[in-house]
């Protein structure tokens, strides 16, 4: 029984891309439109493929709050660093958190000073570390969107079942639709259409966008990550915007089902519930974060062992917050490329591979 082969090369086909770009030009005329990509992976794909140069002058692609590391507030960064410094503690983190600058150091610096900071790829690796190191506690900063919460929840459930008492998380998950909703009403952002995140949508499905489109009258298109996927989405958003339609379309049906992935959602919902949460650049968003349910509170390191974190203002020179709101481009930052680059990042948007500043820097996007 052979399954059909998956061929993604056609989604990178320059001819198809050129034809879509041509259609976009025709549909848009000289209408200026601002389309937001709600996902860091889109930002990277757009920069890498140089898609902005294919689009007419008036069509602006602005990046949004779709990079989990970037939207993590400064206070949470300080909390992770403080945990890493504690004795008998292994801080198990996803790799792109390592270089995010705190007020006086970063996880990488603490690691070089002897803190036990380990990079994990899966939350289950953090769980394994906890099993292998019974004399220490393992703390996983659970940064991530709807895509990451089911894996983290699975690890928490396993820890509970196996009675593991040295595994903890810093609940730092965030929920995308409330953030998009907020930005749809932001006069500084001014969105005419949303390129909805591909992998978050694999989990949440189409309904949240239908809802958003209904209430905010904004066209939404779920898209994959190849140039043809993204141009196809831009084309449909431009068509809807020009004709005054709103609605949500799924242009990534090879990965995204209408109802998302209910199994993954059920696992996440067993452990997490929506709570008000602070986002870098966006402030506190009602129901914008994933907090632990009461029965799993004992896995919250800040409940098990509270620490005082001194107020941690974000670097005032860094405009990441405005970049995350689509109110500024990386190139609008005076430090971009001169004072801030991936080797010496001043803000998280230059650290994370999914950050807009990092993507622009890496692929030489001019704005």
């Amino acid at each position, binding site marked *: *029984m*052979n*399954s*059909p082969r*998956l*061929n*993604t090369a*056609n*989604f990178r086909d320059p001819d*198809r891309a050129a034809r*879509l770009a041509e*259609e976009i030009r*025709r*549909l848009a005329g000289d209408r200026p439109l601002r389309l937001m990509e709600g996902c860091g992976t889109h930002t990277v794909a757009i920069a890498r493929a140089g898609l902005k140069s294919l689009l007419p002058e008036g069509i602006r692609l602005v990046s949004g709050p779709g990079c989990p590391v970037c939207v993590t507030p400064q206070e949470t960064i300080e909390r992770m660093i403080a945990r890493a410094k504690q004795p008998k503690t292994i801080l198990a983190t*996803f790799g792109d958190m390592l270089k995010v600058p705190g007020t006086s150091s970063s996880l990488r610096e603490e690691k070089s000073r002897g803190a036990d900071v380990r990079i994990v*790829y*899966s*939350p*289950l*690796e953090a769980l394994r570390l906890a099993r292998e190191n019974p004399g220490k506690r393992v703390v996983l900063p659970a940064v*991530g969107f709807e*895509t*990451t919460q*089911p*894996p*983290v929840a*699975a690890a928490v459930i396993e820890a509970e079942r196996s009675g593991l008492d040295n595994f903890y998380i810093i609940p730092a998950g965030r929920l995308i639709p409330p953030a998009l909703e907020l930005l749809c009403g932001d006069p500084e952002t001014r969105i005419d259409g949303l390129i909805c995140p591909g*992998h978050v949508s*694999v*989990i949440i499905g*189409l309904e949240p966008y*239908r809802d958003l*489109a*209904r209430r905010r*009258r904004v066209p939404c298109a779920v898209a994959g990550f190849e140039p*043809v*996927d993204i141009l*196809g989405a831009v*084309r*449909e958003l431009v*068509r*809807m915007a020009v*004709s005054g*339609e*709103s*609605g*949500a*379309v*799924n*242009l*990534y*049906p*090879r*990965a*995204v089902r*209408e109802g998302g*992935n209910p*199994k*993954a959602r059920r*696992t996440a919902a067993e452990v997490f519930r929506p709570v008000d949460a602070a986002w870098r650049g966006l402030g506190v968003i009602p129901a914008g974060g994933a907090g632990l349910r009461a029965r799993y509170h004992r896995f919250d390191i800040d409940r098990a062992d509270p620490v005082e974190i001194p107020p941690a203002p974000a670097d005032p020179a860094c405009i990441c917050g405005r970049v995350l709101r689509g109110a500024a481009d990386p190139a609008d930052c005076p430090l971009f490329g001169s004072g801030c680059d991936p080797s010496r990042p001043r803000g998280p948007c230059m650290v994370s591979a999914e950050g807009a500043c990092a993507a622009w820097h890496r692929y030489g996007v001019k704005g």
Partner: protein
Amino acid sequence: MKIIRVEGDTARASLSGLEQEIDVRFLDDPRPGDYAIVHAGFAIDKLDPEEAKKTLDLFRQLSAEGLTPPSGPLPPEK
């Protein structure tokens, strides 16, 4: 990633020759030969090659009249 072998909740999967262990508890009926989208060590869903073809056909047929998305017609607005 392409699934090679499934054992309970875990599977071996490969991408361009690199093999890795992934967790497949969020998939319905994972089988060898399935393509999976993997995030943080977990397969979050399968990729459907048939749908990939349909999307390309759809992009080809686009016209200024608009499109009917593969997931069904646009919901009525207003």
